[in-house]
């Protein structure tokens, strides 16, 4: 499989000035060490709890945020270098698109559905002939699951699911190679979630897309992804194929996440659930970043080494990657 995106040791620190008389810079470490790659036509799931840096990672890939350190390569070329030149910048922008979590907020309230598409086409000078454009927009709309009559409507006249379809239409109309899906279904109710997910899968086959699918919902990620990376406090803690990850999670955090997923199976061990519950008293602790294992305070298996040394990403014999001292 050809590689389309590679992210290497990405870091993002946010700085904020605090204090009134004596100003001090407070540093928030949102993303600390993120590396992964996405192959052509592949869906990579990125999971983790709120505030772990998932969205920040996605926003760095589409250049909404500038990484503090590390590099992003699109088809082998460094994105930060491409951004300097207008043509190569547009080229990158055209190829990497994004679907936002809050579809309503991501649409300009003063622009109709078709105007959102027109804007994208205008920027990249695509389909300048009016007739050709008409046909193309109709095609994009039907591919995204919208009807022609909805073209001239404003965002507030749509339902939540339909708005996300406009978001999808806007992302695919430039014929990109990679789409960053930043929790695209988290704000929708479950029946609509299924429709959007199925639509995303259909479009992936139709357009030959790769996805980076960011979500905190394991069941959604399990459904759509080929491979999954798990993030915790700005670190990637585990990377594995979908099947291996769910059948045999290695990192204690992944194990905890999978156990915490609601299940309809009455045979699921209740005692195990209880141990997680007692563990939840210890919530995420950002002071552990760069000091020791960031998960040490919540980990049932944490030993002395976990409290003294930052674990590195290890590649095991069977090709799985995990960041944990136990392996």
């Amino acid at each position, binding site marked *: 499989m050809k590689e389309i995106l590679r992210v290497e040791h990405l870091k993002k620190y946010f700085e904020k000035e605090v204090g009134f008389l004596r100003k001090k810079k407070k540093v928030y470490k949102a993303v600390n060490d993120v590396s992964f790659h996405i192959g052509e036509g592949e869906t990579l799931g990125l999971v983790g709890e709120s505030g772990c840096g998932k969205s920040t990672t996605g926003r760095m890939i589409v250049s*909404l945020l500038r990484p503090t350190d590390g590099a992003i390569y699109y088809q082998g070329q460094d994105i930060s270098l491409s951004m300097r030149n207008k043509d190569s910048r547009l080229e990158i*922008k055209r190829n990497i*698109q994004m679907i936002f979590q809050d579809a309503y*907020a991501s649409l300009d309230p003063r622009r109709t559905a078709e105007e959102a598409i027109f804007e994208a086409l205008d920027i990249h000078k695509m389909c300048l002939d009016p007739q050709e454009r008409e046909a193309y927009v109709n095609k994009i709309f039907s591919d995204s699951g919208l009807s022609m009559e909805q073209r001239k409507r404003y965002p507030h006249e749509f339902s939540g699911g339909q708005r996300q379809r406009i978001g999808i239409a806007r992302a695919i109309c430039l014929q990109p190679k990679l789409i960053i899906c930043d929790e695209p279904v988290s704000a929708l109710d479950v029946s609509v979630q299924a429709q959007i997910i199925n639509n995303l899968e259909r479009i992936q086959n139709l357009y030959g897309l790769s996805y980076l699918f960011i979500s905190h919902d394991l069941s959604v990620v399990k459904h759509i992804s080929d491979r999954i990376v798990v993030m915790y406090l700005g670190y990637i803690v585990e990377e594995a194929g979908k099947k291996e990850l769910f059948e045999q999670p290695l990192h204690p955090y992944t194990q905890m996440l999978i156990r915490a997923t609601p299940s309809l199976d009455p045979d699921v061990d209740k005692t195990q659930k209880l141990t997680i519950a007692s563990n939840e008293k210890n919530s995420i602790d950002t002071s552990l970043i760069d000091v020791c294992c960031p998960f040490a305070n919540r980990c049932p298996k944490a030993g002395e080494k976990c409290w003294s040394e930052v674990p590195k990403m290890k590649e095991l014999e069977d090709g799985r990657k995990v960041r944990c001292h136990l392996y």
Partner: protein
Amino acid sequence: MKTLRKLFSNKLAVLGGIFILLFLLCAIFAPWITTYDYSVQDLMNTKVPPGGDHIFGTDALGRDVFSGVVYGARTSLLIGFCVLVLGGGIGILIGILAGYFGGWVETVLMRIMDSLMAFPAILLALIFVSILGSGLKSAIIAVSLAQVPRFALIVRSSVIQIKSNEYVAAAEVLGQSQFKILFLHILPNGIAPIIIQASLSFGQSLLIVSGLGFLGVGADPLSAEWGAMLSDARTYLMTVPHLAVYPGLAIAITVLGFNLLGDGLRDALDIKNY
């Protein structure tokens, strides 16, 4: 189209529109409406009460009050228009730059605005008049300058609020340039408070220039200006009240008209209100 329909369904806005229409008609067709020249004095017929040849009567110098009020609309329109173009234009530009770019650009621009805000508009106008000499031109410049920070503050805060919206990020992801994001997404979505401020500023600037006229430093005595007319009428307020009533009413109705229309426009421009 929807915006217009919504505007017309608002009774108060329509009333405001009628007032403004009346005002504009007076300004445009002044020479055809009036029968007397306001600059001509008729000392044989001073302080004639309203009715007859002079519908609004004549003032202490025998000038036709009706002509004064009608021609005064021209002066007022000129003032309001200049203030909006000059004060509004500069203010909006400063507000956009400060709000969108932030950092030291914002700090420098907004501190200048703060220091301008520290002076009441009328005081600023008096300073300008004493530098540039009395007359309509310096009054207009002074009033425009006084309006700049009001526009700048409002535009800046709405730009800051709008630029954090996800649709601005979405446009950036599409590859839209900063300049186009400003004028295609941010400005159209922040137009409502600008329009309200414009309608308020129009009224305010009329009041301030009238106030300057009242103090005797605004328009020159020969030209028709409502504030100056009011000022002249003050001496005879007890004996010939009609001299003050008509220019006063003209100011009140015009300012009210702009405020009502601005209010209606704000509601009509709210896209979610259809």
